[in-house]
């Protein structure tokens, strides 16, 4: 595929879509998180099932201790002991590195409201997963609770699952969006790139989002219009050519009945010139039209055949290059292209060389050289345009000036190029360079 991709990964629709989706869900999470922190800072830390159980246990133990005589307290406490929850009766309140009792918060006020009357919370301290709550019963007994939190609540399984689910859905959404948006888009680009009005274009499928369907439909309609225009042009040219060649044939036959020699020859030349112009216009139009199928051909025999034809017509021309070289190409088109170049060369020069160079890897060059006046640099790019007429107005040599344009089209159909170079001391070298493996 010749469709160029000069763009990086970041410029692809898929990448941009992933970035947008990931960024927007991150923003959503940050938003939700800050909302939670603002509204209920503790809830994030305390709402895990373990923490809830610990808090309830604290209330139960405190209520029990208040109701029981001092002698039975130890028994109650031992009934509540667990690995992550201990309560101990101490004589003196331990010193805590910091005390969070006074911090504000809805949860804390609820917590304090559940504490039995008479019980005083002396200190609350958190260090890592361990929380220490120091209380004093109404009779002065100090109770220290040691609570071990499970994993921090924001890394708990449900949240991990949620985040995983979120990212998985982003990926799925992206894949879907790419299939739906990006691939029709790139198919669209390939179709537009391919379209050359040469009969091998396919109708673009109308799929994807509404805008893309609309674009595809518009493209298909445009393609139809262009094809119709090309077809009209071809038909018109064929009709003109037929209608011109019939009177030309009459002229040619009438000349046969005129005995006089000198004007007769000039008229014959004019008829030949007009016929040549018609032929080159047809060849130009045809070159843009239906193509032949590529096949393996012997390039030197093709070039020698063209040379022989001109040699037989009385033009001095030599072929230089290998005797055999097989190339996958469009042989008839290539022959037309080279014929047009040689035709130009013999018009402007007296000695013409067709040279084949196959030494360069991956590329073959066909040079058609003449010793004519050459083409000034300023005109080089313009003489290859169809219907261009230089200062020397080519009326005298005939044709619509299509020779180079035809050869240029042939070169492009082979994925190659046509270039013009100066020769010393004077003359022109037209180089038709094509890849040694045909690009379709």
């Amino acid at each position, binding site marked *: 595929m010749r469709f160029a991709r000069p763009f990086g990964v970041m410029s692809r629709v898929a990448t941009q879509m992933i970035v947008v989706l990931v960024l927007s869900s991150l923003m959503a999470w940050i938003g939700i998180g800050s909302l939670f922190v603002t509204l209920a800072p503790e809830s994030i830390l305390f709402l895990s099932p373990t923490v809830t159980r610990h808090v309830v246990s604290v209330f139960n133990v405190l209520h029990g201790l208040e109701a029981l005589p001092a002698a039975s307290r130890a028994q109650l406490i031992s009934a509540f002991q667990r690995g992550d929850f201990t309560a101990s009766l101490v004589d003196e309140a331990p010193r805590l590195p910091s005390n969070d009792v006074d911090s504000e918060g809805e949860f804390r006020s609820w917590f304090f409201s559940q504490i039995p009357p008479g019980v005083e919370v002396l200190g609350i301290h958190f260090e890592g997963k361990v929380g220490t709550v120091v209380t004093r019963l109404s009779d002065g007994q100090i109770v220290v609770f040691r609570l071990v939190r499970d994993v921090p609540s924001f890394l708990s399984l449900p949240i991990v699952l949620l985040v995983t689910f979120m990212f998985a859905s982003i990926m799925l959404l992206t894949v879907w969006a790419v299939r739906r948006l990006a691939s029709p888009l790139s198919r669209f680009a390939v179709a537009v790139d391919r379209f050359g009005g040469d009969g091998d274009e396919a109708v673009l499928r109308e799929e994807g989002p509404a805008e893309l369907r609309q674009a595809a439909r518009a493209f298909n309609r445009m393609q139809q219009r262009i094809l119709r225009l090309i077809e009209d042009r071809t038909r018109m040219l064929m009709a003109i050519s037929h209608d011109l060649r019939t009177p030309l044939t009459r002229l040619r036959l009438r000349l046969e*009945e005129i005995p006089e020699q000198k004007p007769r020859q000039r008229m014959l030349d004019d008829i030949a010139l007009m016929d040549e112009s018609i032929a080159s216009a047809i060849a130009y139009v045809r070159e843009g039209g239906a193509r032949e199928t590529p096949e393996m051909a012997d390039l030197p*025999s093709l070039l020698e055949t063209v040379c*022989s034809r001109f040699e*037989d017509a009385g033009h001095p021309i030599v072929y230089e290059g290998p005797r055999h070289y097989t190339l996958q190409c469009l042989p008839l088109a290539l022959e037309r292209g080279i014929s047009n170049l040689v035709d130009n060369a013999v018009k402007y020069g007296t000695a013409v060389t067709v040279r084949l160079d196959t030494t360069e890897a991956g590329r073959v060059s066909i040079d058609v050289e003449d010793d004519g006046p050459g083409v000034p640099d300023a005109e080089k790019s313009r003489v290859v345009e169809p219907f261009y007429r230089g200062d020397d107005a080519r009326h005298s040599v005939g044709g619509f000036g299509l020779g180079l344009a035809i050869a240029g089209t042939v070169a492009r159909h082979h994925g190659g190029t046509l270039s013009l170079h100066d020769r010393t001391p004077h003359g022109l070298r037209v180089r038709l360079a094509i890849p040694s493996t045909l690009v379709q």
Partner: protein
Amino acid sequence: MQSPHILIVEDDAEIRTMVTRFLTKNGCRVTPTGDAQSMNRAIAAARIDLVILDIMLPGEDGLSICRRLRSASSVPIIMLTAAGDPVARVVGLEMGADDYVAKPFDPHELLARIRAVLRRAAALPEAEKPAGPMRFAGWQLDPVGRELRSPAGVRVMLTSGEFDLLLAFCQHAQRTLTRDQLLDLTQGRGTEAVSRSIDILVSRIRRKIEDDPRDPALIKTVRSGGYVFTPAVDAP
């Protein structure tokens, strides 16, 4: 060949008249017609030696007439066309035309081709008319598509003069042919063969098909004057 009877099918009255006049002056008996119906009447009325058939005709077109004529008889056909299109040429030849002349044409060339086609028709009995590709030493020569392919299947290009000469060699393989005979066999397919001597055409063909053109194995020079095409030719 005394006064061949030529049937012209051409819708342009003036061209028809002038070609008729020219061919009559050059010793042909000519029946001019303007469309398929009058052509049918003319064919029913008299024996025709050759048909000159325009492709663009009102009513039934030249290609379809050509196909019809060919299915009924082996009368030689020369197509005339204004399209100057190699595709039309191949189609015409595939429809069974013997030769093809592009408008505007030189009447002398038309005459030369008429003579060549008539000569070939006389030289080749019905059964020998080549229909499919011929094979020699692995090479394949297709007289209808006018293509030559090497043993590796690679297309090798020939000028029409070279092609006609190689075709003549294939049709007369393993026989010594003098230059005059070869000239006779190839003349008329174009002016090329006439203007270039047989020797030049042979050396060009050798460059394209021989392993060593200086020591040719396929087209050998015969000392007494002439050439012999050495390989056995497989013709369908």
